[in-house]
């Protein structure tokens, strides 16, 4: 409770501070000549700055500035070509990627099809233990590079990657995968220059990309990553700022104060403590939108028979007042979830979940009793205590106790992993919270990695849910040759999962970003929470 109290207090103090400075007026004209370096708040990237070893939001933000990928995601969340001139396929299995001219790495080396092939081969090779390794598993030959622990890969190239000529790359997948083009925007699929392979270790602090910004000096751990505009980039004319400095903060409250003080210009996550005042503090420089995360409550279907009936799971879902939780506990930094597919990706249908996600305590109680309830009228709800989940999980527990009349025991675990271990060791058999956030903006990414049979071993299907019909529709979506047909098949899979409800979708995350007075409003943040640097303009 200490955190919440001091947070309110801090927010109040900021209002006072702002009111005081507002009288000052004056305005600064120190930057009359040309724009100054833009400072963006960043958390410490987990690994060195190698695209294929970057699988978290902070490092990805830097990668996005330093590299230009084959595709990008536009205002409508659709996939547009970026460095690729065309990406074509007839069967969703063999993809021909043609590159645009004029792109070079920051060291002058031209970006060719080989730069992509080399980078992907490196990322997929188990010997390099890159974090994004599993993302290459659709490409033919991935298995050869990943023979398993204790064995050496016999080759260092995937046979599915064929460099046809300098500007053409032909990619063959092990099986058709219609979302492949969308996937290519993720930083695992960025190209790498030859210099990387000479010194991967050095690259970690001095990466050489092909993006709009190049490194200015080295990555100073825990402090900053400084970049300047790369004038030879084909889109350089659209960049209106001299460079971006990523300033690393270990504490968003401090970063927010620096944002108000004008020492930080972009913050992609306004801290919870400032949520009630951010709109007033920032005005039209407060950016709100949807974020790709989904929060669930999961059932251990594989481990515990009492949750086997879908009717029970749906009744529990219906007894949760999502609106109260998102408004009261999350102060509108979440929105009630009504689909397994996030609103940020094509294929989302508002209200797809229907009645089970619509709060109706009377109907929920009726359905719960009709399905036989839970043995002993008892339920356990687990959460990891390290992630700020206590409040909402306790609220859910209170709602279930009130609306269904069950005794809910809330159980904290040290880490999320502990819940899974205890489930596996049969030390725990209750429900648990979890969340998922996409790797690439496609409906497939909200279904297969979470609800497919394959995801029990390789993904986040921690409930052990299996439905052969779902598998069928997912495969249908993968093999579809048009985007529309693919989305339709995924939606059919989605419908079936919503009917079975192995996880309860509770909320979608929201994007709350802020800009300083040094920048004009109107900065676009795409669905991967990455800044569209061409929309950043000095005030």
């Amino acid at each position, binding site marked *: 409770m200490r955190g919440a109290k001091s947070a309110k207090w801090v927010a109040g103090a900021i209002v006072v501070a702002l009111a005081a400075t507002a009288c000052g007026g004056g305005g600064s004209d120190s930057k009359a000549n040309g724009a100054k370096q833009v400072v963006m708040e960043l958390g410490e990237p987990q690994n060195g700055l190698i695209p294929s070893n970057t699988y978290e939001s902070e490092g990805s933000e830097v990668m996005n500035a330093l590299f230009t990928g084959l595709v990008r995601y536009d205002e409508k969340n659709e996939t547009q070509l970026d460095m690729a001139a065309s990406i074509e396929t007839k069967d969703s299995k063999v993809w021909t990627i043609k590159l645009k001219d004029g792109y070079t790495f920051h060291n002058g080396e031209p970006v060719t099809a080989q730069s992509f092939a080399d980078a992907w081969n490196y990322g997929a090779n188990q010997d390099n233990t890159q974090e994004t*390794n599993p993302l290459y598993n659709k490409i033919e030959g991935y298995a050869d590079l990943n023979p398993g622990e204790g064995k050496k890969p016999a080759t260092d190239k995937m046979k599915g990657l064929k460099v046809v000529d300098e500007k053409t790359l032909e990619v063959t997948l092990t099986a058709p995968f219609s979302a492949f083009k969308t996937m290519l925007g993720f930083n695992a699929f960025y190209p790498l220059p030859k210099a990387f392979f000479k010194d991967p270790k050095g690259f970690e602090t001095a990466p050489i990309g092909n993006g709009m910004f190049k490194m200015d000096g080295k990555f100073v751990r825990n402090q900053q990553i400084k970049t300047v505009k790369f004038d030879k980039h084909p889109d350089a004319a659209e960049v209106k700022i001299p460079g971006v400095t990523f300033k690393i903060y270990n504490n968003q409250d401090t970063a927010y104060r620096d944002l108000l003080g004008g020492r930080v210009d972009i913050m992609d996550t306004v801290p919870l403590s400032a949520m009630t005042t951010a709109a007033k503090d920032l005005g039209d420089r407060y950016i709100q939108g949807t974020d790709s995360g989904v929060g669930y409550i999961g059932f251990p279907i594989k481990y515990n028979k009492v949750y086997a009936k879908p009717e029970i799971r749906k009744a529990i879902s219906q007894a949760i007042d999502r609106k109260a939780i998102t408004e009261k506990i999350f102060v509108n930094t979440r929105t009630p979830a009504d689909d397994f597919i996030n609103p940020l990706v094509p294929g989302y249908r508002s209200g797809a979940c229907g009645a089970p996600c619509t709060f109706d305590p009377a109907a929920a109680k009726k359905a719960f009793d009709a399905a036989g309830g839970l043995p002993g009228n008892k339920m356990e709800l687990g959460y990891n205590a390290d992630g700020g989940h206590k409040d909402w999980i306790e609220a859910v527990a209170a709602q279930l106790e009130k609306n269904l009349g069950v005794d809910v025991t809330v159980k904290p675990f040290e880490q*999320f992993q502990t819940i899974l271990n205890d489930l596996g060791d049969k030390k725990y058999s209750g429900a648990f919270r979890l969340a998922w956030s996409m790797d690439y903006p496609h409906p497939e990414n909200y279904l297969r990695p979470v609800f497919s049979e394959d995801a029990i071993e390789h993904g986040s299907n921690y409930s052990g849910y299996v439905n052969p019909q779902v598998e069928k529709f997912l495969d249908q979506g993968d093999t579809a040759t048009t985007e529309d047909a693919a989305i339709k098949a995924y939606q059919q899979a989605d419908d079936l999962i919503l009917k079975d409800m192995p996880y309860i979708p509770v909320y979608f995350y929201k994007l709350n970003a802020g800009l300083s007075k040094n920048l004009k409003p109107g900065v676009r943040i795409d669905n991967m929470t990455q800044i569209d640097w061409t929309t950043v303009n000095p005030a």
Partner: protein
Amino acid sequence: MGRYVIRRLLQAIPVLLGATILIYCLVFLLPGDPIQALAGEKKADPNITAILREQYHLNDPLYQRYWYYISGVLTGDFGTDFTGRPVAEIMSETFPVTLNLATIAFAVEAVVGIVAGVFAALGRGKFLDNVVLLSTLLLVSVPVFVLGNVLQLVLGVKWAIAPISYDSEDMTTLILPAVVLASASLAYITRLTRTSMMETMRADYVRTATAKGLSRSRVIVRHALRNAMIPIVTFLGVDLGALMGGAIITERIFNIPGIGGTLYQAVYLRQGTTVVSIVTVLVLVYIAANLIVDLLYAVLDPRIRYA
């Protein structure tokens, strides 16, 4: 004297070994897989996880892993964390920052604390004494995170006369954090100096010194203060370690990339080698500080001799 120092240094070896064993076991007995911790809630790839576990000896028994670690340390190699970064590199980046912060804080609390304490003691019951007593009471009772946030908001955001966060290119940004960090100890030192000074000022030898006709300043500084320093030095010595290890809250408020934040992150991500190495160095700092304090006793009080 020399033999005493050697004996103390030899005593430090089992302390250090014991500390590393204890911390090593504690960190690695925490639930949760360090490789999975890096992937967050997403499942890390089973194959890559298996390779990394083997690479970092995570499948070996604890005593064997401890042996790998400690034999590395003895040859000057602190190993790497689970993202492959050398721990020595992490420490060489973060320790100097914390050391700077702690040194400034130490200077602030020693100088301000002793001076304020002496003046309060000399003017016992007078206005200045009351001011000192009241302000130190305030400093002791306000928690560091409250003081830090208030000063940051008032001086940094509202009046804009002090920096909000640390800037590696501008050392003056460490002054406010150092004052915040020193605040509580500053209050203790002031009060300790005041009490200790008042006591010595009443001692017979001080009265003799005054009777001999020595100047007041000489009596106070050379005769009284020197003797009154013993409890203060004890406190300062222990506090140096506390300042380094306890800087975590201050470092967080002012975004200072020192050992506090690194240690927190390392515990959170189960980066065992990082935690053990940093704590080991902190233990060393404590041992060294305590030894210096003990040696200073002899300097301050001629009656104390180490054979």
